[in-house]
């Protein structure tokens, strides 16, 4: 073999090794979710007899509730959040990208600055405010900030959409203006339809970050009937103290299925979203 070929073989070998290290825990996870507690400490990847009961018992392991409730809660919360995020962030992004108004540069640099603001500085005063409003143990502490282009990633989305709208030719706006279209008409009829790909990116990351917003859910949701999937997992972990690892791992595995499906079907948007804006992923 030539030196060039050897290089390529080594490169692929290293890459395969890396990929295995990355994915192996997940493969092990699948096997472990079907094991009994005794088998968990055995080195084999898959159990001799798959314990499908881990999934059934795990699904019903919170007394009085099933995971169906927690998934419905989570999807309800996230759907509401996504709808208000898409509306508010596209409006704001259109305003920054297309309209001219006093102090625009100033406000936009403030927006860029809040991109860097560590969220934990805000949790205490926000909690005190929402507590006063009587919003604790409702979904309002998530929906209202997102409706105001904030929340988990709102400012990121505005920035991403502004970049995208700047790439849309202004001639389209101009010709719509000649036809007597209002600014809102231009936003709604011209720019919105063209923004579809970036809106998909926004929806994906909005979904992911809210699904994983464990600290937020922990702070604001107290009663089990409003629990999200993440909180339910934590509750099983706390109450069982590791007695039923199989069930816990099974339910944890199910909880990453939505994100994985999203990734499989919309991989293109992921890679573009991460690569072009440097999203935290």
């Amino acid at each position, binding site marked *: 073999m030539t030196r060039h070929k050897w290089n390529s073989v080594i490169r*692929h070998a290293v890459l395969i090794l*890396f*990929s295995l290290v990355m994915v192996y825990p997940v493969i092990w996870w699948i096997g472990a979710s079907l094991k009994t507690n005794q088998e968990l*400490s055995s080195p084999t990847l898959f159990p001799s007899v798959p314990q499908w009961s881990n999934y059934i018992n795990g699904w019903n392991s919170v007394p009085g509730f099933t995971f169906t409730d927690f998934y419905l809660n989570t999807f309800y919360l996230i759907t509401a959040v996504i709808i208000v995020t898409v509306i508010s962030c596209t409006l704001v992004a259109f305003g920054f990208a297309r309209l001219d108004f006093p102090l625009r540069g100033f406000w936009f640099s403030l927006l860029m600055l809040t991109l860097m603001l560590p969220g*934990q500085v*805000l949790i205490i*005063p926000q909690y005190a405010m929402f507590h006063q409003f009587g919003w604790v143990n409702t979904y309002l502490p998530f929906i209202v900030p997102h409706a105001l282009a*904030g929340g988990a990633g709102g400012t990121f989305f505005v920035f991403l959409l502004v970049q995208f709208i700047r790439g849309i030719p202004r001639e389209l706006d101009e010709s719509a203006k000649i036809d007597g279209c209002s*600014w809102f008409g231009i936003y709604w009829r011209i720019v919105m339809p063209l923004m579809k790909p970036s809106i998909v990116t926004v929806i994906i990351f909005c979904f992911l970050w809210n699904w994983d917003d464990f600290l937020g859910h922990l702070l604001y949701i107290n009663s089990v009937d409003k629990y999200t999937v993440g909180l339910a997992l934590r509750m099983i972990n706390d109450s069982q103290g590791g007695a039923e690892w199989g069930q816990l791992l099974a339910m944890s595995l199910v909880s990453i299925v939505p994100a994985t499906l999203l990734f499989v079907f919309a991989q293109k948007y992921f890679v573009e979203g991460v690569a072009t804006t*440097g999203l935290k992923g």
Partner: protein
Amino acid sequence: MERATSLASEIPVRKKPFRKRWDSPLAGYLFISPWLIGFLALTAYPMLLSLYYSFTNYTLMKPIEWVGLDNYERIITADDKFAQSLKLTFYYVLASVPLKLIAALMVALLLKRAVRGISVYRTAIYFPSLIGASIAVSLLWKNIFGVDGFFNKVLGFFGIPGTGWVTNPDTALWSLIGLSVWQFGSSMVIFLAGLKQIPNDLYEASAVDGAGKLKQFVKITLPMLSPTLFFNLIMGIINSFQMFTPAYVITGGGPMNSTYVYALYLYERAFSRYQLGYSSSLAWIMLILIVAAAVIINLTSKYWVFYESESQGGKRK
């Protein structure tokens, strides 16, 4: 109305009078109003509120009492947990951020050439970043790095004695660092995009001049990639300084407070003991430290971050 009709006779564009109303600063402010209201009410005001709280002994139950600099003084002079959690957090940031970036850069360099199978590799390596922030993965980690966990089985296979990685105070923080480094995939995707932007003729020209691979890396790849590196470094520090879910779920701050990171301390002070005043001071100290780190890195950036737009005269910025 009158003006609108007179304009209409001259320029057809101004035919509709209502459009004139929209074509004003007001329209711009209407469009950005969701963000502007959110910024003022849910970012700017809470920050001022938090600053005010930090000078009080506010709890949710009692009336607020102004205590001046007492909180800050107590934190800096008499709070062992503050000093310890800060030290741990620095350790975590200083270990996880560089390791993550180095792994991301290395794999991105490998992937840049391996054209065949690139999407499979990229998917496999990105996948942990996709799911890594979830509580599910924290639970998985807790199991894998336990005494009877899978990781010790792998070590046993190679004849290396293991330990209870998450229950041993000496290794618990490293199991959390490992979880962070395992998610280097998103940084890798960003580096990969950055690498693809480097014009190939730079490499060809330098090869003609007799530059080796290492020299090309140091003289071309690193400078051209430095803005991406800079951005990733800053965001990495901001995010890992606030690490919460893994410490809360995997170790709960233990064993023997060996993973009691700053965010966990802040959370406990605020929401287990409801000392909102004291924890606001903690939050402001955190903000000041993060801003200081960002400013320092920004100051050093003129020595190592290279912006292409200013490279015409060979000038470095």
